[in-house]
């Protein structure tokens, strides 16, 4: 029940925000976000990680529409809990960074909380119908948040993002329907469908269902070349929404791919893993290269998200414990870091300077007028580069190790991608905040407000904590892969 409380708090919060007067909106939103984080964190700390304990804990199961075999089945293992905690952290940080929203704040926070609730729901659902319901709930509020509160090219960006998401969902829906029909079991329960003792799906069926379902999920994860919605959408979105999108919503895609597509169709997975891994590596390298060429700071950050998600997808395809565990950890890590980067670029910088052009920003002497922003962006950049001490390093090196074991040739584009990532991150950091030469007298800017500082500190603490003590997350995540559901993914060999 405690898991269900996460999304219930969010949806209830959304309703309350709409009902109560405008000046209560952000307070209620913050309360709802904190409540969700609290529930997620207490579930995480309450999770029994001992070797003999059941893998899926906090399970709720009730029939919903028995005529179709649909039940309300939720629970969590290490993977789910890590992502639930991520959602909680990003939710709170997002509200803090949106503290100054003046235009129709009630509608803003209501839509925001609906997305949060939907995301919470996806990460804990074990019934395919239920998972899809939550997955779809997330789509519509995104459109409104971007088109009503966004910036550059917002209507186009919003529609493009939404339609891509809808297209991906359509593929997933088709695959889910086909799966249930083909299973002959008249159920939508994931654990029942993936039960190893059941006869698996016919190879010919898997050969087409797997790519359809995987691509459907992976669109949302930014699989190259279906990623073009992401930079446009992220740039158009207001800060908190970019944080949500890059931080959490993209992870919905990779989670769905892992939890549903990969577990149900091992034969299809084996056939398609190499092409997908190649695309993932391409995403790492090409995302980084395109980021290098950007002149708009938010686009740089947007493309860097594509590169980092490429790591996630590569890790998933390695099918060994190292790569898979690293991929989930990278989902968490990039969620935090991406959120932090977008927060600085959008809220701290753009809201004040009304420009995102790197050259223009460099001339503003930002290191002197906004020292907190400079420091935060430096920390975020360093973390994004994968420097040890922060969560990104552990995740990336674990994935690289997994890739070594599975697809050694792909280490080349991946490694190059890391180098280019370092290059563009450093160049962007330098040109924006620390340009060479003396800047003329910088125009004064409003100082960083306490809510922003709080949000930034929360995110920085998270990435540092996981960087220094990754076992806290890594152990539950790795143990999740021993459950009967996930075990089939690991195709022999040591970790």
């Amino acid at each position, binding site marked *: 029940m405690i898991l269900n409380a996460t999304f219930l708090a969010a949806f209830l919060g959304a309703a309350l925000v709409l009902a109560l007067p405008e000046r209560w909106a952000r307070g209620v939103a913050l309360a709802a976000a904190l409540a969700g984080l609290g529930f997620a964190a207490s579930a995480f700390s309450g999770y029994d990680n001992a070797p003999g304990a059941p893998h899926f804990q906090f399970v709720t199961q009730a029939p919903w529409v028995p005529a179709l075999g649909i039940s309300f089945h939720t629970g969590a293992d290490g993977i789910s809990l890590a992502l639930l905690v991520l959602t909680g952290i990003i939710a709170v940080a997002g509200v803090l960074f949106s503290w100054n929203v003046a235009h129709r704040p009630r509608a803003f926070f209501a839509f925001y909380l609906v997305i949060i609730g939907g995301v919470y729901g996806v990460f804990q659902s074990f019934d395919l119908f239920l998972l899809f319901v939550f997955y779809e709930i997330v789509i519509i509020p995104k459109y409104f948040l971007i088109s009503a509160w966004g910036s550059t090219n917002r209507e186009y960006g919003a529609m493009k993002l939404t339609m891509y998401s809808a297209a991906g969902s359509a593929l997933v829906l088709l695959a889910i329907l086909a799966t249930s029909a083909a299973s002959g079991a008249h159920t939508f329960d994931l654990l029942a469908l993936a039960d190893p003792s059941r006869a698996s799906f016919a190879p010919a069926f898997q050969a087409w269902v797997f790519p359809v379902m995987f691509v459907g999920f992976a669109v949302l994860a930014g699989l190259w070349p279906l990623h073009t919605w992401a930079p446009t959408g992220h740039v158009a979105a207001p800060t908190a929404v970019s944080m949500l999108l890059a931080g959490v919503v993209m992870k919905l895609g990779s989670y769905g791919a892992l939890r549903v597509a990969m577990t149900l169709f091992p034969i299809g997975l084996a056939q398609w893993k190499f092409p997908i891994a190649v695309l993932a590596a391409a995403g790492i390298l090409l995302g980084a290269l395109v980021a290098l060429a950007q002149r708009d700071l938010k686009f740089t950050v947007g493309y860097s998200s594509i590169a980092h998600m490429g790591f996630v997808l590569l890790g998933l395809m390695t099918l060994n414990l190292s790569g898979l*565990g690293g991929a989930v950890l990278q989902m968490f890590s990039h969620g935090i870091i991406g959120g932090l980067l977008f927060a600085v670029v959008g809220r701290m910088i753009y809201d004040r300077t009304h420009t995102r052009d790197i050259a223009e920003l460099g001339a503003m002497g930002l290191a002197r007028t906004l020292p907190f922003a400079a420091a935060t962006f430096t920390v975020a950049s*360093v973390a994004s580069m994968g*420097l*040890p*001490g922060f969560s990104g*390093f*552990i995740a990336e*090196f*674990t994935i*690289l*190790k997994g890739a*070594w*074991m599975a697809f*050694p040739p792909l*280490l080349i584009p991946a*490694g190059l991608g*890391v*180098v280019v990532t*370092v*290059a563009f991150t*450093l*160049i962007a950091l*330098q040109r924006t905040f*620390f340009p*060479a*030469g*003396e800047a003329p007298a910088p125009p004064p800017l409003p100082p960083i407000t306490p809510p922003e500082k709080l949000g930034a500190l929360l995110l920085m603490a998270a990435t540092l904590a996981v960087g220094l003590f*990754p*076992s806290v997350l*890594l*152990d539950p995540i*790795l143990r999740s892969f021993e459950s009967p559901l996930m075990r089939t993914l690991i195709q022999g060999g*040591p970790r």
Partner: protein
Amino acid sequence: MTILTLIPLAGALLAALLPSPRAARTAAAGFLFAALGFALFLALGYDRAAGGIQFVERQEWIPALGVEYFVGADGMSLMLLLLTTFVTPFALLAAGPGIPRIHVVLILLLEATLIGTFTALNFIHWFLFYELSLVPAFLLIRSSGTKAATAAALRFFIYTLVGGLAMLIGFLAIQIAAGTFDLVRLAGLGPSLDGLLCARFQWPFAGALVFAGIFLGLAVKVPIVPFHTWLPDAYAEAPSPVTMLLTGLMSKMGLYGFLRLLLPLFPQRMQELAAPLLWLALATILLSAFTALVQTDLKRMLAYSSINHLGYCLLGIFAVAAVPAGASSASGARDAAMTGVLLQIFNHGLTASALFCFAGFLEARSGGLRGLRDFGGLRTAAPVFAGLMGIALFSSLGLPGLNGFVGEFLIFSGTFHLVPWAAAIAAIGLFITAVFLLNAIQNLFTGPLPQRWAKFPDLTRSEVALAAPAIALMFVLGSYPQVLIALFNQP
């Protein structure tokens, strides 16, 4: 051992919080001297009879990935720690009282990361500090504010990072094959590591590839020709105190890496590849020497001279690797060469940082000029300065009686026994070195004094006090090298 790493960290924190930059500087200096004292204490407490790695601390960190917090030091590490804790305060104080607070903090952080690198015994732990050291170094290099400095810093960072990445990938493969990141255990595996790699990946070239990766990473750091192009710009454009740190300490990380990481793990490969490796060392020595000869910028010349001296260390290492242990006649030569390498590491660190310190003084007085042609006859205007800097230059040259001689001598004598042809060719480098250093002395100090330098101020008392310990050490170590050798007479 952890305490040693923590001292500069605590100092950095305090310096960041103190109100005035001067107070920060004073506090930082205090912490650094404390670190030096502690390092001395450790060195004295080292049990020479037992040898090996002592002061071990070991903790589980990320068991799922085989990463441990594993630190310890043997004689070689202790020597490097002493060097680090000596050069860092030297550099900090050389920067003068006007140093901005952020630089103080960065220098302290840099020392912490260096200490961490020199004491780490688990690869990931080592790699963590290695990468972390890049950040303060990067920021410090570009702090002179010029566009050239920014570009140089960026190049430094990227080159070194790429090298680091290559090493990481190599070690990942090692972990997959051997199951551990523990450097001590891996050293124990010795020659069989190569075989393990080939077996695990079912590819006969796996071992070679991993070796190449790790070698590449170290080659960028040392640097070895042709991966050295980042160095002259970085050394020249960075403020002199920063260059002191770069040349004195960070370059040693690469050599330390060879000694700790590559040599124990791939002795066979190194033996097989001895000839090409020696040629690389020779290329480094000769190319840098010739290039130094034609430099007109003092700092650039010193930079190339640094590369040259590091090349001698490489020569020694590769020579030792070329002839495997076992042949008893060679063992004396090996010992000699290895001792020479270690001595040279320390001495070069000392001498080069002193030289850059003086270069910094010169630059400050001349308003930024540092071309060799710009000066002349400074001996008459600033005799103390000329004298002290002259001593340092002679030490770099390898004058007997000063510290530079012993190390070079031992390296050459050992190499001559092991790989005579290489020693012969390298000797040319010695000769060229002498030429350009003497040239520098002549251009700077002798000859007619141009009008504009008539009022060239001599060293102040505080500056003399600053340089004095280093100069004194040069004499001491020149006469009694046993002081150091005793630390690691069983390398």
